[in-house]
């Protein structure tokens, strides 16, 4: 691997983890679409900040853009509180308004710099290694890496410091308020973090794909974890895997790195959705099939038990009678009888089915329940 390749993957991984951490709280708070709103409307802040500061990687620019993100959240809430507009519609009204102002500002006044609409939508990671941070004449690495590492550190500190408060306010805002942990303060704290992260990630992957990195890794991890701490850890790991694998797919196919990374988040989500242990689609289908066979076996044993030693047992407990009595297709009946026989619950005397002691016990237990 060349140095720029390593640098790009490092930046991509830092973006992915920075996005995944607050993203976990967004999906738990059912606010996934707020990431979409914030990641778009920060464009105004970036545009205005850029005219004032003239440097795309300046921390001050991050600040001005983050403020726009928080402004978006406030405006959405203000509009929702009038009760004339629902929250989803309010989001749909506010962020395109701010985003379009940003687009107009950029197209009118910044047509000749790196800040253009393509970059806004898609970002360009491939160029990140060219923008170096030089301190006292020494090149110490790409600026983007330092910016993202700083944001990652900030997110980690925020979540570590307020882990308990975030958990409580997300699970039960009422109790959080009653205990004196202002849910409003926690909400805006989180929204500030989301905004700052969106600004940083925006330069690398563009505003559209920020959403993919904030939502898909946590949504994927949610399928396979059942503790908040493991959700955070698993989302971060999945984010890094998506970032690195996305980079190499882009490298192999010669396509956009950001697009490829976002595609990988989708691939991993679908794969997990299908193949997750316990909660994945495949294991649910397999479990249902297994349960069906087990239940059918129990039915068979109970049927045999009820007729055992009674007159007519030769007819009732006859292989051919199962279709009539239990409404089983001959194929299915054969499978179930075979399975019960292998388990040692029944034995066969020609076509007559006999319970073993073990089968009798299972039948008795099934009936007690």
């Amino acid at each position: 691997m060349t140095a720029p390749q390593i640098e790009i993957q490092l930046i991509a991984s830092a973006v992915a983890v920075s996005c995944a951490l607050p993203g976990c709280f967004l999906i738990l708070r059912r606010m996934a679409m707020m990431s979409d709103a914030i990641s778009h409307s920060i464009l105004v802040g970036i545009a205005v900040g850029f005219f004032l500061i003239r440097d795309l990687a300046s921390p001050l620019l991050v600040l001005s853009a983050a403020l726009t993100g928080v402004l978006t959240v406030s405006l959405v809430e203000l509009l929702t509180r009038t009760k004339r507009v629902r929250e989803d519609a309010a989001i749909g009204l506010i962020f395109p308004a701010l985003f379009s102002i940003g687009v107009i500002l950029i197209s009118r006044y910044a047509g000749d710099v790196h800040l253009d609409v393509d970059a806004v939508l898609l970002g360009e990671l491939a160029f990140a290694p060219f923008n170096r941070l030089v301190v006292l004449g020494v090149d110490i690495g790409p600026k983007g890496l330092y910016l993202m590492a700083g944001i990652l550190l900030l997110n980690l500190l925020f979540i570590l410091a307020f882990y308990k408060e975030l958990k409580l306010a997300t699970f039960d805002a009422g109790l959080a308020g009653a205990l004196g942990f202002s849910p409003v303060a926690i909400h805006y704290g989180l929204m500030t973090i989301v905004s700052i992260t969106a600004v940083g990630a925006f330069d690398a992957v563009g505003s559209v794909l920020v959403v993919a990195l904030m939502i898909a890794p946590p949504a994927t991890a949610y399928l396979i974890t059942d503790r908040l701490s493991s959700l955070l850890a698993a989302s971060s790991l999945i984010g890094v895997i998506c970032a690195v694998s996305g980079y190499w797919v882009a490298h192999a196919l010669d396509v956009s790195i950001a697009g490829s990374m976002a595609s990988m988040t989708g691939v991993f989500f679908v794969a997990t959705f299908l193949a997750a242990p316990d909660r994945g689609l495949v294991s649910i289908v397999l479990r249902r099939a297994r349960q069906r066979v087990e239940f059918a076996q129990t039915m068979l044993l109970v049927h045999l038990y009820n007729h055992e030693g009674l007159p007519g047992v030769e007819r009732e407990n006859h292989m051919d009678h199962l279709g009539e009595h239990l409404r089983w297709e001959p194929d299915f009946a054969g499978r179930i009888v075979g399975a019960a026989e292998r388990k040692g619950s029944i034995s066969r005397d020609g076509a007559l089915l006999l319970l073993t002691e073990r089968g009798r016990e299972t039948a008795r237990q099934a009936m007690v329940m």
Partner: protein
Amino acid sequence: MTGPRGMAGAESAIRVEDLTVAYGEKPVLWDVDMAVPPGVLMAVIGPNGAGKTTLIKAIMGLVRPVAGYVSIFGKPYLSQRRLVGYVPQRNSVDWDFPTSVLDVVMMGRYGVLGWFGRPGRAERKAAMEALTKVGMADLAGRQISQLSGGQQQRVFLARALVQDARVYLMDEPFQGVDATTERAIVTLLKEMRSEGKTVLVVHHDLQTVPEYFDWVTLLNVRCVASGPVEKAFIDRNLRLTYGGRVSYLTHHAAEETFGHPEE
């Protein structure tokens, strides 16, 4: 009814004065006055939309009143937070949240821990004790999405117990629980009262009011009556609260059911 325990004068555990709360222009609570003495089990009853949940939330400052004043043992809620335990409606939270039973119960200690404080061994121990009290110790490590309705309610009660408060506000703890859990909760409430705790419970089943509670507040936006059950829980007040549809006391069996949760 138990009197104030060793306190000078009859200081109320909860005192609500002239409380008015409005959502928009519509008043939800209108000039409510109420004084709950320490050491009583009080039911708050009233039809849907009577403002029962709002009353609890206003006592804890979770909704801002238009007018009025609330005090806990003579001081505003803000300075008495530690003395108040809260059991919200069971369906007010997301039970698919990725966490364990023990972890939810430990949340009751967060108020004492304050900002930045970390739950540790002491909190774990308190939570286990509370879970034992509500008969849920075996399920401490379970993911909360696997709990039944009754078990969820027990978890919430255990969480309130670890708050180790003197005043408890419970929003419909009997809603959607089975008979076993209902009995267990009643036993727990009476135990709390014998320890001198004051418990205010939003309740829906009129028939069990005299059996479970010793004080009652009848609420329908206005406070119709508030006092000991034998004085306040009378036909006239019930009729004023529920609008003439109720014939509880004359027939001693409510024909209509009122067991619908508030929205």
